[in-house]
């Protein structure tokens, strides 16, 4: 009886000691809240949890708490709400274009400071494609975020139909595009599908980049929307439906684009590289991919140009220095060539580092499906995705204007562009 009591006492004592000692011993360990948007059909949560487990093997003191937060917009709203109250993630994937508004809110910290204190930091940054870094810096060129799940729009075409119609090469400029689309249009099939609902600004930027008239100034403080590039681009899109009749009228669906293309109801499609994996697996014909040809023919006969898109990794100001340091480790891990290559192979985003394309994973992928290389190579012609101060507001103004014109709701294009430009100017003047 006595011994049993003693045993109980001793066990309790040990438990108590452990309880006191354990937190002290565990003080080194850090748990990071990692928020990500856009689940993807390939179970992004599951993939991130795999990565987190791999990461924790190498960093036993860091635990990653993987948290899905809805769409990019939901994710941003949640992060703003939580950080305003002193909560929020330690590290997150957010749109690269959200950068300036988060800087103004004081929510994020520049990753430049971590790069500077990391051995080989400069080489690490130099390994990223320049096109992706354009949206990762502020107006002074300071680096704030690291490219992670990046994309760019490309032209998908039905190669079988191309050979039937005797078209030998993918269109390289806007006139060739019209010619090809006209040749490919048939009963029950449109020549081209250019999605214009929801977020038309992204694809539309291709007109500005290819036309060499940037939509935004270097320091993000001026926006040039009321320009001939915009007016011509809009007229070009309207003509595709109304004059050339190679595309249905009205705002065309983004989400249904891949299905419409893969089921043969459109011969060409403008869509993100993020759909490549899906389209290749669904289409019963040979799929070709090409650079976006929305510019007028230049000296070499091409009119290429496209924006980049997608999400970057951000580190947050509410976190302690230890958490930030751990978050930086996680960011480096996620942007390592191996993980970038794996992420590309499993989701269709473009690996943001050149060295990732030298890995076995991606060399094998490109050898098997050369379509993937097109997205990478187009980066040479890519400009930055639209961002500016008051980015969300200006995007809303531009999206509404483009969408109204393309859907045929507004017919006086010069007046619409002028009104939009005036709103944008007063936003930037605030």
């Amino acid at each position, binding site marked *: 009886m006595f011994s049993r009591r003693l045993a109980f006492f001793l066990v309790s004592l040990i438990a108590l000691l452990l309880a006191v000692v354990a937190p002290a011993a565990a003080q080194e360990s850090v748990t990071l809240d990692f928020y990500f948007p856009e*689940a993807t*059909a390939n179970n992004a949560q599951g993939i991130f949890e795999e990565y987190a487990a791999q990461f924790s093997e190498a960093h036993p003191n860091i635990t990653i708490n993987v948290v899905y937060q809805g769409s990019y917009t939901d994710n941003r709203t949640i992060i703003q709400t939580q950080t305003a109250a002193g909560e929020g993630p330690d590290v997150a994937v957010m749109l690269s274009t959200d950068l300036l508004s988060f800087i103004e809110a004081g929510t994020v910290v520049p990753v430049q400071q971590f790069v500077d204190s990391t051995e080989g930091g400069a080489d690490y940054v130099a390994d990223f494609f320049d096109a992706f870094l354009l949206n990762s810096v502020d107006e002074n060129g300071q680096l704030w975020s690291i490219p992670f799940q990046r994309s760019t729009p490309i032209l998908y075409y039905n190669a079988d139909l191309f050979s039937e119609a005797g078209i030998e090469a993918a269109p390289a400029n806007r006139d060739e595009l019209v010619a090809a689309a006209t040749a490919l249009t048939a009963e029950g099939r449109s020549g081209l599908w250019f999605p214009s609902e929801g977020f038309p600004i992204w694809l539309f930027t291709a007109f500005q980049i290819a036309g060499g008239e940037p939509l935004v100034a270097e320091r993000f403080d001026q926006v040039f929307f009321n320009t001939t590039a915009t007016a011509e681009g809009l007229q070009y899109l309207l003509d595709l439906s109304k004059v050339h009749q190679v595309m249905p009228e009205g705002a065309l669906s983004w989400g249904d684009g891949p299905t419409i293309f893969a089921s043969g109801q459109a011969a060409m499609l403008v869509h993100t590289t993020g759909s490549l994996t899906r389209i290749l697996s669904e289409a019963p014909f040979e799929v070709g991919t090409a650079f976006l040809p929305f510019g007028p023919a230049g000296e070499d006969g091409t009119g290429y140009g496209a924006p980049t898109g997608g999400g970057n990794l951000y580190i947050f100001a509410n976190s302690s220095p230890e958490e930030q340091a751990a978050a930086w480790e996680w960011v480096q891990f996620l942007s390592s060539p191996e993980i970038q290559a794996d992420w590309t192979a499993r989701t269709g985003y473009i690996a943001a580092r050149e060295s990732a394309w030298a890995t076995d994973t991606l060399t094998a992928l490109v050898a098997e499906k050369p379509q993937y290389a097109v997205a990478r190579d187009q980066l040479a012609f890519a400009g930055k995705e639209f961002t500016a101060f008051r980015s969300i507001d200006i995007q809303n103004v531009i999206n509404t204007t483009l969408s109204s014109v393309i859907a045929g709701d507004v017919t006086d294009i010069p007046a619409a562009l002028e009104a939009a430009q005036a709103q944008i100017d007063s936003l930037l003047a605030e």
Partner: protein
Amino acid sequence: MNAKPRSISRHFSWGSVLANVVTILAAGIWLTPLLFTALMSFRPPAEPVTQGNIFVGTILTTENYTRAWEIAPWPDHYRNSIIFVVGTLAVQLVTVTLAGYAFARMTFFGRDLLLILVLLQLMIPPGVLLAQNFATIRDLGLFDTHVAMMIPYWGSAFGTLLLRQAFREVPIELEEAARIDGATLVQVLRHVYVPLAVPTYIAFGVVSVSSHWNEFLWPLVVTQSESVRPLTVAINKLIRTADQGSLYSLLMAGTVLVIAPLSIVFMIFQRRFVESFASSGVK
């Protein structure tokens, strides 16, 4: 006694045949989306409805279900959604009964003002007060708990209004009779008011359950663990595939997974719902 009702029912029968046809047609239209949701969920992921037979496509598969099932910890989400809606409703039933009775049958200083203040909840969508409400949850130390999702709904202006209305239709004589028999307030509520308001409780219960079953942004803001989050998070994972475009078959499989349990519950209990409607109607 026999002759007259028969003549009435014969008079009704032609009309009711027509009414039956109209009912079935209308319900048929209403059910069409469900039918196609179910059918689509068995199509191959890549196959649009325009391909093959409109009903069954070219081939049937359960692939969408296996993929949808892998994307989220569904059992956890089911459990959390049930905790969320049941926990919300259980507390609501108590609070709206008390408040409904007070506003319906008691006179006290400031009653109308207090009622109007409570009703403000109907007018201000909770979604837009996100920032302040998140701060409150955090100050209460409830971040990432089931209670955080439920607590803003534990007082319901809608339910209070419904119950106040229902209680006012209860003849006051019934309460007076019970009081004379020495019943306490709790007994009066339990034996007089609550039984007579059962249809109202059911109507309120249905909207409470279905609207919280719906809730997405608020749970997302106040939680971050999969072990706490409700089903809408799972269905959103299937919807948020914007980069790949819409995958309807997969999405429909997810929709079926979400709607099935609630539908089964409704099917089982609907007879009881109706009986309680009927029994209270007779009284």
